[in-house]
């Protein structure tokens, strides 16, 4: 099972990337207002 030496760190790296993505989103104020986006997306005429 020595392959785990490869997969586990990679998966954790992936998890770390997404924690970083969440932090970036938080910093850029993506989660300040979770009410309006779902209405605003309807307004864009397709």
């Amino acid at each position: 099972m020595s392959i785990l030496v490869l997969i586990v760190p990679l998966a954790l790296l992936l998890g770390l990337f997404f924690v970083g993505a969440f932090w970036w989103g938080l910093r850029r104020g993506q989660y300040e207002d979770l009410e309006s986006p779902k209405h605003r997306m309807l307004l864009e005429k397709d």
Partner: protein
Amino acid sequence: MSTSTGVINTEKFDHKYDDEIVKYFLMATIIWAGVALLLGIYAALELANYKFNLGLQWLTFGRIRPLHTNAAIFAFGGNGIFAGIYHSSQRLLKTRLFSDKLSWFHFWGWQLIILAAAITLPLGLTQGKEYHELEWPINIAVAIVWIAFGINLLQTIRRRKEPHIYVALWFYIATFVTIALLYVVNSIEIPVSWFNSYPVYAGVQDALVQWWYGHNAVAFFLTTPFLGLMYYYIPKAVNKPVYSYRLSVVHFWSLVFIYIWAGPHHLLNTALPEWAQTLGVIFSVMLWIPSWGGMINGLMTLRGSWDKVKTDPILKFLATGTIFYGMSTFEGPLLSLKSVNEVAHYSDWIIAHVHGGALGWNGFILFGMVYYLVPRLWKTELYNKSLAETHFWLGTIGIVIYIVSMWTAGIAQSMMLNAVDATGHLVYPDFVQTVVRIVPLYYVRSLGGLMYFVGYLLMVYNVVKTIKGAPVALAASAKREEANPVLKLDTQALVQESISEGPHRVLEGFPMVMTVLAVAAVLVGTMIELIPMITSTNAQSEEFAAFKVKPLTSLQLAGRDIYVREGCYLCHSQMIRTTVGDVLRYGPASETADSMYDHPFQWGSKRTGPDLARVGGKYPDLWHVRHLLNPRDIVPQSIMPTYSWLLEQKLDLGTIERRFSVLKMLGVPYSDEDVKNAAENAKKDSIAIAEDLVKQGGPQGLENKEITALVAYLQSLGKQTEKR
């Protein structure tokens, strides 16, 4: 874009979206859907009746099935999500795609890859790893095109005019990033010739990496992008906001933070270590919660407008698709419980689960999207709504017939295979006794597939008539609008924009892209060095210490490559499970050591035919030759296709030496002279077998023919390992 004062300037707000690329991807989706469905029906018929194989090597089930899976997942599903992603993200970000050049490179690149697959797979140029059969040059092409898609998507997000990134876009980002990582990790292989290669992993390692990729190809290629499409198209189609935006954000992040352990639920009760299997079970059951979070969010968006669903075919497709998503993501965790898995694994129940998701969830969401997009892209009305309704009903009934027939077939066969009478003997010792009972269900399944395909044909007719009926003037003006020289503006706008918005934006400019690529390159580089080191130490690691394993001879290796080429692993498994039924039928359960030198591992995932892990020595060579020539001569009711060309085609030993040196590099204990005179040994052994066959009264002149190599390999199965 300056705004003249006073007059309300609509140009600034009427964003120029690139709908041309969406139209092309949509057309590709519709075309490849047809191909995939046709291949599906053909493969189903081949299982129902061997005559459909027509005795041609390019049409046997072993080579058509990978073509069907790749066409369905990457051609139909792939083009579908790209059309949806490019259409929805431009609207959600209120800006045009980053660069038209990248978009078109992505489009034509992807179609070329599909074409390459359509050519190589029937020729048998495959890696023998499910959903990853394409050979190494195409892998590289896929990686490049996927990176192009990623850059296009991420840069469009960076240049967005709408500050908030809608949840659908987070799903698209997750899809790109995770598939990039998984595909690269599972594509680490050493080329042996232009269209052959050996993966660096072997045996149980290869199994874990393959199914770590296999499950996530399903999760991050056929679920997260489709959840993104659901979160965009259901609210748009019903014109009501999603039920709970907060739930969608929570369920997204809870999904992506801990996404490692789904793979092992494909390997339950096998030689995989006990704790890894249990972990796979735990994680799969946990997956049920975020999946149903997505389904509930999608369906609850329709609360209060179910009357619309009654009348609008688009909503019917999207809603039913989401329900099928709920069904198959409930069935998944159920299947990953060890006791249920004992019945389901290797049986048709798995096929029912796969098609519940593929036809129901992926198919219907894409059909819903097509009916939604075609009228809007061509700025016209759908040609005939009731046609779409019939397509829906045909499709739904088709899926139900498909699934129910496969459920019955799977459970019936497993029950029969595991049936043990009072004296402890198998009630159905011959595998074929079970096959005979479920062959009629294969016809029923083909009928279900056919109904689904007919529904699809109605859609094609409907879409073609709609586009033909589109007002030509509009179509022309749409052409003119698209053609304006946007390209020049992009790069100049990008540079100008990043400077004007201060240092932070410049930081995020080109250097960002470069760093991402550099990190990826370094990552791949280290893996190339790291992995051989791991796999080579593999031989000494203590869990294999208890066994002495003989590596394959050169003839046996050539036979193995034919085994992989013909896709025998698609109907035969090489993994005797630790269950009573398996052990009684096939002998002692397989050990991890049995497959420690197998590059790639051939444990298989479906037993249309019996398990071959210990078939070595069970039947004489002549039995195998006559069986392969015409299975019905030996087993009258067999549904196995004939392999007559194996007796005619000359064994290609041109690259056998190169193959041996590569395997030696990957840790298989070959000595140097093994490598040097691999070709002579193979010829010598082939002639020996041929003479022996003649002695037993078999056909003449089989020296150096492929059949001898395959027979040599089959006879070696289960003979390579002894306890130390």
